[in-house]
């Protein structure tokens, strides 16, 4: 083995030497696959903290260290890797990298310090990467990976024996070095399934004969049409084709170094699926790389990437679906769980009062004590918790050192370390109570409230927020957590409504962020997740919410795509708006984005001139009416201006944005959706900003100048009151 390791290192060295041309390198790696396969040890890359939303918890702690069934998420992932016989591991940390490092080094996994580690090497890579894309590109740059490797996320829970998949992958590799990647997917049936990501359905188009993935798309609940557009020649090329929507994407990919190469080549890819997978499959003609699927029907594999899946997986663990990764196999040394008849799983030294009922599917950590008359069902309680008398706890996940007073009821909540809940309290569903929060007696905590004590981070300055007696009661500690990352909202909702559009929305956000971040210098967004929602750019705090935007846009886009009529779209749209009580601004933004996107597409794909594109886009039946009524409602000037702003902002990062903007403005003016005053004032404002304005924004509107001038001529004079509303919005 050791020699094998050396050889690997040697190879790595060689790579460095060769450096540069990635295609060749990948090929090289592919070429030298067959021979020393058996000898080679397995490499894996763990993406610790790039996706997912666990606020307020993830504010203070790295997500992958949050306990699931009293065991940190990362442990499950590492167990899985150990189970699969991985030898060398690289852990990529996004946020909180220091803490993760501390944890790892203290754990049994860290080879230098613990002889017990099953891994030959374990490296923590701290990088500034904000997205999977960045991380992988960075990884590629470092030349660490020299052969096939496993790519997993730090929140993976799986008991899947991976050998079969590896073998299949290798076989394909040997046959054809272009088979660069194998994704492992778990069937989850067509019906409802708690562990399937609620809102977004990944759609895999596969060729069952070759286990090859041909096309990938994501569908979401509120999408107007349920159509995919599949490249027709796929149909001609492949005799058999399966379109699967019944799959859990557990994010286990078996990759070859070429994958990294591909990432590196396409710098704008941010997320593994919606960008990378989709993209690579799309231009199969160009790169000729094939990606394959290994669809498993046995065993367990899922990711706890948001609170919804956290809950689902917790349930799965309680239901032993993850066996042997269950509490009573005491994965972490020092644990001493015993599984008792009836599904109660408790550690040594638990003190149960005589009359308390610790019901089925319940886990109790060491030295936790439960008072008389209390009942627990389907819950997980950490260590050293003190639970008073006549407490009722249902479907709740309580971490270590929590104190719960007498007569309190907790239903479907997460209570983090060292929180203190007074007596006679009522914790309503979907409540998240963060570290050290103190709820004083007789307080009722509203549904979906998220309470924290963490310092709030405003533009990089940490400010301590005073406790809010409204929420935590007199003498309580903690305040209602709301932050600028809208996606938290929905992760919260997802916890209760189990409709997680997170997977995708987060991704979509990340793309926008990345592109925006070039433009708007003001985005000082959280270092903790790379997805500072794009809405952040128009500082709409709180209520506005990302998945609304996402669904709205996609919904409209679809209507535009197949020229469906807008009246139905409008209904849906309004429904959507109500359900997420989105603000007018968001609506405008959504609409703007939708149209610009569409137009941009037309321009790029159908190679129309912007003007034609705009014409066709706005020409869609009912579009005009729709815009008038919905987009710029009462025809208030501010609204119109805002709308233009939105258009402008969105076009910033589209090719020919400038042209399009011009075309759009013209169009909208002709359709008199927008009146000239609006245009003029918008222009002026922009002018006002002068150098304050980001040059992208400036660039985008250059082409529109013509139109404006034309207007000016038509108009004699122009009003010039200022109001910085829109200004505010732009940061």
């Amino acid at each position: 083995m050791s020699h094998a390791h050396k050889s690997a290192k040697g190879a790595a060295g060689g790579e460095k030497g060769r450096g540069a041309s990635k295609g060749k390198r990948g090929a090289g790696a592919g070429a030298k696959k067959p021979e020393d396969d058996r000898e080679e040890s397995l490499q894996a890359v763990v993406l610790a903290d790039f996706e997912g939303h666990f606020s307020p918890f993830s504010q203070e702690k790295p997500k992958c260290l949050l306990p699931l069934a009293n065991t940190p998420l990362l442990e499950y992932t590492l167990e899985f890797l150990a189970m699969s016989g991985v030898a060398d591991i690289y852990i990529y940390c996004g946020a909180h990298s220091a803490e993760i490092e501390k944890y790892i080094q203290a754990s049994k996994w860290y080879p230098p310090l613990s002889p017990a580690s099953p891994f030959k090497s374990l490296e923590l890579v701290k990088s500034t990467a904000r997205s999977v894309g960045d991380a992988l590109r960075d990884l590629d740059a470092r030349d660490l990976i020299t052969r096939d490797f496993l790519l997993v996320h730090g929140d993976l829970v799986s008991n899947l024996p991976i050998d079969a998949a590896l073998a299949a992958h290798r076989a394909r590799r040997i046959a054809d070095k272009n088979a660069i990647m194998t994704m492992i997917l778990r069937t989850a049936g067509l019906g409802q399934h708690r562990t399937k990501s609620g809102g977004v359905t990944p759609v895999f188009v596969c060729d069952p004969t070759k286990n090859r993935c041909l096309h990938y798309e994501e569908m979401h609940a509120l999408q107007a049409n349920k159509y995919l557009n599949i490249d027709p020649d796929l149909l001609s090329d492949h005799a058999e084709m399966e379109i699967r929507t019944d799959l859990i994407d557990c994010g286990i990919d078996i990759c070859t170094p070429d994958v990294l190469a591909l990432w590196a080549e396409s710098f704008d890819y941010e997320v593994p699926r919606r960008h990378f997978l989709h993209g690579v499959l799309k231009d199969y003609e160009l790169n000729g790389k094939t990606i394959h699927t290994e669809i498993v029907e046995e065993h367990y594999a899922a990711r706890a990437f948001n609170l919804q899946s956290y809950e689902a997986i917790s349930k799965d663990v309680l239901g032993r679906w993850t066996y042997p990764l269950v509490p009573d196999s005491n994965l972490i040394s020092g644990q001493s769980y015993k599984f008792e008849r009836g599904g109660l799983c408790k550690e040594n030294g638990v003190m149960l009062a005589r009359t308390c009922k610790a019901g089925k599917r319940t886990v109790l950590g060491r030295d936790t004590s439960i008072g008389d008359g209390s009942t627990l069902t389907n819950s997980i309680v950490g260590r050293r918790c003190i639970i008073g008398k006549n407490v009722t706890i249902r479907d709740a996940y309580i971490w270590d050192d929590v104190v719960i007073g007498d007569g309190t009821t907790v239903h479907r909540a997460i209570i983090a370390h060292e929180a203190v809940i007074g007596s006679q309290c009522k914790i309503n569903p979907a409540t998240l109570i963060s570290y050290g929060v103190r709820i004083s007696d007789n307080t009722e905590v509203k549904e979906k409230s998220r309470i924290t004590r963490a310092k709030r981070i405003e533009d990089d300055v940490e400010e301590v927020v005073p406790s809010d007696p409204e929420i935590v009661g007199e003498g309580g500690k903690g305040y209602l957590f709301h932050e600028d990352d809208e996606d938290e909202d929905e992760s919260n909702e997802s916890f209760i409504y189990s409709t997680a559009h997170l997977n995708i929305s987060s991704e979509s956000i990340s793309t926008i962020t990345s592109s925006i971040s070039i433009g708007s210098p003001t985005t000082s967004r959280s270092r903790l997740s790379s997805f500072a929602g794009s809405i952040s750019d128009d500082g709409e705090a709180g209520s506005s919410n990302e998945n609304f935007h996402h669904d709205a846009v996609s919904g409209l886009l679809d209507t535009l795509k197949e020229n469906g009529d807008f009246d139905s779209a409008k209904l849906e749209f309004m429904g959507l708006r109500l359900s997420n009580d989105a603000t007018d601004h968001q609506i405008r933004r959504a609409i703007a984005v939708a149209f610009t996107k569409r137009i941009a597409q037309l321009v790029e794909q159908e190679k129309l001139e912007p003007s034609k594109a705009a014409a066709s886009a706005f020409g869609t039946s009912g579009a005009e009416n729709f815009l008038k009524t919905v987009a710029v409602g009462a025809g208030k000037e501010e609204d119109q201006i805002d709308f233009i702003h939105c258009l402008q902002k969105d076009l910033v990062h589209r090719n020919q944005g400038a042209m399009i903007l011009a075309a759009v403005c013209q169009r909208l003016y002709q359709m008199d959706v927008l009146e000239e005053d609006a245009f003029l004032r918008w222009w002026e404002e922009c002018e006002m900003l002068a150098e304050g304005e980001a040059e992208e924004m400036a660039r985008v509107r250059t082409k529109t100048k013509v139109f404006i001038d034309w207007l000016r001529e038509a108009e004699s004079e122009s009003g010039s009151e200022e109001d910085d509303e829109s200004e505010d919005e732009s940061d």
Partner: protein
Amino acid sequence: MSTVGDVVPRDGKSKPFDIVETYQRLLAEDPELTMPVAAIEALIELLVHSRAVTVFETLDLVKTQSEYLKSRVTNSISLSAGTDLFQRYMISSLKPTSTGNFETVRQHLLSNGRLFVSRAKAARERIANYGRHFVRDASVVLTHGGSRVVGALLSKAAEASASGGNVRFRVIYVLNGDRVSESKRAVSDLRARGVPVATIPEGAVGYAMGKVDLVIVGAEGVVENGGIISRLGTYQLALLAKAAGKPFYVAAESHKFVRLYPLGQYDLGIDQEVIEFRTEDEPGSTEPVDFTDITPKSAEAPEYFSSSPTKPNTAVDAVDYTPPALVSALITESGVLTPSAVSEELISMWY
């Protein structure tokens, strides 16, 4: 009786040494004392008083005295365990082949009287420590009688242990109408330790058995085939437990192992007046059997020798025999034994 002759008056007491009297005194002094141990103590005192010099004298003395003691006590089964053990010990340790000579052995016995007692009690502790593990969380234990071992065991189980946290169990205690005070004590002891106790009459055992998880009883003697001799009523508990498929455990110190092989209830080597046929015209009694006159006496007096030696056992302190087939396991200070293991013990010990 020659033995009396051999005994010199001691510590001023001019009264000659009477083994029976000693035995009963010992029991009276220390309620914690079990009969076998008491018997051994008594025999040791005997040694103290005797001035037998040769091995065989001594052995003979011990033998005759034990016989005498047995004869004078009703239901000598339990105590005979003690006397037998004692003799056996003497014999084996006084074997010419063995290195320990008479004096050593005698000295050892004389000097360590109290030690034995404390050991006997220690044994009880150990049993409790093993036995507690039989009592699982949320289980229901059925027991009866005033066995100190069982008492110790249950109260031990009630304490929380370092590992495994606390055990929450409940007890169904079968009241014995004739031993109210004893039952009361046992029950209140448990309740004092926070163990919920239900008391049922003996008639309700069959009814209650369905709710029971395990049965634990004490024993007066453990016989050679692994069966036990114990308080009247134990046998029927065992039968019912068997019928309902519930485990039936016996907690007994190993010094209660008796060299006795009863073939059945009526082969215990003692006569018990449990079944008494009467008719109206018989003088003195109106009901077939009348315990009422005995009950109060047995109530305050220490249990086993309430009735005068000459009088045979009445139902009050009568015993019955539970065959090994009904015993799931015996909990002794040396561990948990299957009945077959017990019998092997005795076999190998006596032959």
